[in-house]
C-alpha cells in the first residue's frame, strides 16, 4: 500500500537510503585508500571484461573457438600480427589467452559457487542444531581437511575421468569443508549475540532469525574467503590442466596451453610465458582484492 504511506514512513525510507549511500561512500573511500586493493579490483575487472568481450578483443577469434590450422604460421615469435606469437598449429596465442579468460571465469564461479552451495547450508545447519549433527560434520570435515586438496581432487578426477567439468566438480568437493567450518563458526558465535537474543524475545520466527539476523551477518567473512578462494581455484584448475587431468586440448585453458608449450620451451618461450602471465595476473587480482576486503572488514588487520 505504497500510496497511503505516512510521512514518517517516507522519512524512514529516505534515511535508510541515505544510510546505504553513506555506506557505499565509506566502502569506496576505504577502497580508494588502498592502492593494492584498487590494483586487485582493476585486474579482476580486466579479467571479467576480457571474458565478456573476448570475440571483440581477440584478433583471430576462430583460432580459439574453431579447429583451424595455419601451417605457414607455425610457432612464430611475437610480432605486430601476433603480439603473443603463435602455437604449433599456427594459432594466435593472444586470441587463445583472451578466450581463456572465459574458461577461467567459468572455473571460478563454478568451483567456489558449488563449494559454497554445499558448505554453507551444512555449516549453518550444524551451527543451529549443534549436538550430533555438528559432531558428524566436524568429523567429516576433519577428514577432508587432513588431506591436501589437490591430492584428493586428483583422486576424484581420476575416478570420474579427466575433463574440465570433472576437475571443477572435484575441486568443489574438496573445498566445501572450509565453507562449512566457517559458516558453522559464524553461526555459533552469532547465536550468542544480543541482537539475536532480542529478536527471539520479541517473537521473531526462527526462520527469519536464521536468514535475516544470522546469515546476513555471516556473509562478510564468507565473501572474503570466496574472493581469496577464487584465486586458488584458478591456480588449482590450471595445475590440473597442466598435468592433463583438467581441461583437454584444444580448449583454450591456460594450464593446458602451458602444458603444450612446455614441449617447445627451449626455443619458443612465448608459448609458455603468456598463458602463465595471464594466470599470475588473474590470481594476483583476486588475492589483492580478497586481502583488501579482509582489511576493510577487520579493522585490527590494518597496517599489518
Amino acid at each position: 500500500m505504497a500510496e497511503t504511506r505516512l510521512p514518517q514512513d517516507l522519512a524512514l525510507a529516505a534515511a535508510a537510503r541515505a544510510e546505504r549511500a553513506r555506506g557505499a561512500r565509506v566502502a569506496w573511500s576505504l577502497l580508494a585508500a588502498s592502492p593494492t586493493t584498487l590494483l586487485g579490483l582493476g585486474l579482476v575487472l580486466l579479467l571479467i571484461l576480457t571474458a565478456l568481450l573476448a570475440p571483440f578483443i581477440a584478433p583471430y577469434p576462430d583460432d580459439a573457438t574453431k579447429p583451424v590450422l595455419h601451417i605457414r604460421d607455425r610457432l612464430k615469435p611475437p610480432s605486430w600480427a601476433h603480439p603473443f606469437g603463435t602455437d604449433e598449429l599456427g594459432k594466435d596465442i593472444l586470441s587463445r589467452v583472451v578466450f581463456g579468460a572465459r574458461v577461467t571465469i567459468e572455473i571460478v564461479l563454478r568451483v567456489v559457487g558449488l563449494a559454497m552451495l554445499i558448505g554453507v547450508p551444512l555449516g549453518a545447519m550444524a551451527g543451529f542444531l549443534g549436538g550430533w549433527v555438528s559432531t558428524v560434520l566436524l568429523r567429516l570435515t576433519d577428514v577432508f581437511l587432513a588431506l591436501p586438496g589437490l591430492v584428493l581432487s586428483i583422486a576424484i578426477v581420476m575416478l570420474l575421468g579427466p575433463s574440465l567439468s570433472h576437475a571443477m566438480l572435484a575441486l568443489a568437493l574438496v573445498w566445501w569443508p572450509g565453507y562449512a567450518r566457517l559458516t558453522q563458526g559464524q553461526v555459533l558465535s552469532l547465536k550468542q549475540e544480543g541482537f539475536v537474543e532480542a529478536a527471539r524475545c520479541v517473537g521473531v520466527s526462527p526462520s527469519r532469525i536464521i536468514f535475516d539476523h544470522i546469515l546476513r551477518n555471516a556473509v562478510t567473512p564468507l565473501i572474503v574467503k570466496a574472493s581469496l578462494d577464487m584465486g586458488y581455484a584458478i591456480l588449482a584448475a590450471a595445475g590440473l590442466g597442466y598435468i592433463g587431468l583438467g581441461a583437454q586440448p584444444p580448449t583454450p585453458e591456460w594450464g593446458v596451453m602451458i602444458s603444450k608449450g612446455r614441449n617447445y620451451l627451449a626455443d619458443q618461450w612465448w608459448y609458455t610465458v603468456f598463458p602463465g602471465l595471464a594466470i599470475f595476473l588473474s590470481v594476483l587480482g583476486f588475492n589483492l582484492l580478497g586481502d583488501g576486503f579482509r582489511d576493510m572488514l577487520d579493522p585490527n588487520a590494518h597496517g599489518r
Partner: protein
Amino acid sequence: MLRRYLLRQLVAMLPTLVGITLLTFIISHVAPADPVRFAAGPHATQEQVEQLKRYFGVDQPLHLQYLNYLRGLLGGDWGRSIRSKQPVLADLARYFPASLELVGAAIFLAVLLGVPLGVVSALRRNSLVDNLARVVAVAGVALPAFWLGLLLQLTLAFQWQLFPAVGRYSPELGRPAAITGIYTLDALLNGNWTAFSDTLRHLALPAFTLAVNPLATITRMTRASMLEVLSRDYIKTARASGLAPWTVITKYALKNAMIPTTTMIGLNVGWLLAGSFLVEAVFSWPGIGLYTVESSFYSDFQPIMGSTLVIGLTFLLVNLAVEALYGLLDPRIRYG
C-alpha cells in the same frame, strides 16, 4: 606430560585416519574406470576377468572389501600397482624419499629466507626491504608453481646452463649408493663430494620453485607476529633495562613470534606435499607426485590411494610434531 599428551593426540587422530581410509576406499572401489579390465587387456575372456577379480579381491560385498582393505593396510599390504606390477608400499618406499628431500629442501629454503625477511621488514617498516618482502609475499602466492618452474628451466637451465633442467642426478656420475634414498644425504654419508654437489645442483631449481609459496606465507606470518610481539610491554621492559637490541630481538621477540610461524611451517609441509605434484611433473623428479600423476594416466587406483594415505598421514604427524614444538618455544604452554 608431553608424552601422554602426544599419545592422546595420536588416539584422537584415529577417527580421521579411519575416515581417510574410508574415503580412499570409496573412491577406489566405486571407480567406473575398471582397472581389472585394464589389467586383463582388451582380449581377455570372461573367465580371465573373473580370475583377476578374485586376485584383486573385488568379487566380494563392499563392507567385506573394506575390512579386507583395512586389514591389508595394517598388515603392510597396500595393494598392487597394476602398471608397475609391484606392491604399492614398495613403490612408495622408493618414491617417497625423493619427495621428502624436495619438500624438506623447500621448507629449509623458505624458513632460511622467509624468517629473516619477515623480521627485518617488521623492524624497518615501509623500508625498501619491507616493500620487497611485500612484493614477494603477494607475488609468491599468486605464481603458478609449475609455470615458475618452467621459467627457471628456460632461463637458468636452458639459456645460461647454470643448473640441470630435470632429474635427481647426472646419469654419467650415477646415483649415490642408497642409504636413506635422500640422495644429497646419501652422498654426504658416503663422503662423496662430487655426487653431493651434483645432487644438490639437481635439487636447486625444483626446491626453489616449491619454496616460493611457503616463503611468501612465512615472511608475512613472521612480520605480522613480530610486529605484535614488539609492541608488548616485556619488550619495552627489556629495552629499557638496557639489553642489547640484538638480544631483545632474537631472545625476546623472535622466540615468541615463532609460534604462529611454526604453525605456518607445519601446515606448509602438507600443502607442499600436494604442491610437489606439479613441481615434480615439471622437473621429472621421481617422487610420489610424479608416481601418482603417472598412475593416473593408467586408471591405476591403488597407487593413488596409497599416496593419498601417505600424504594424509605425514600431514597429521607433522602437525603433531608442531604442537610438541610449541612447548619448546613457549614454556608456559602445558600439555594437560
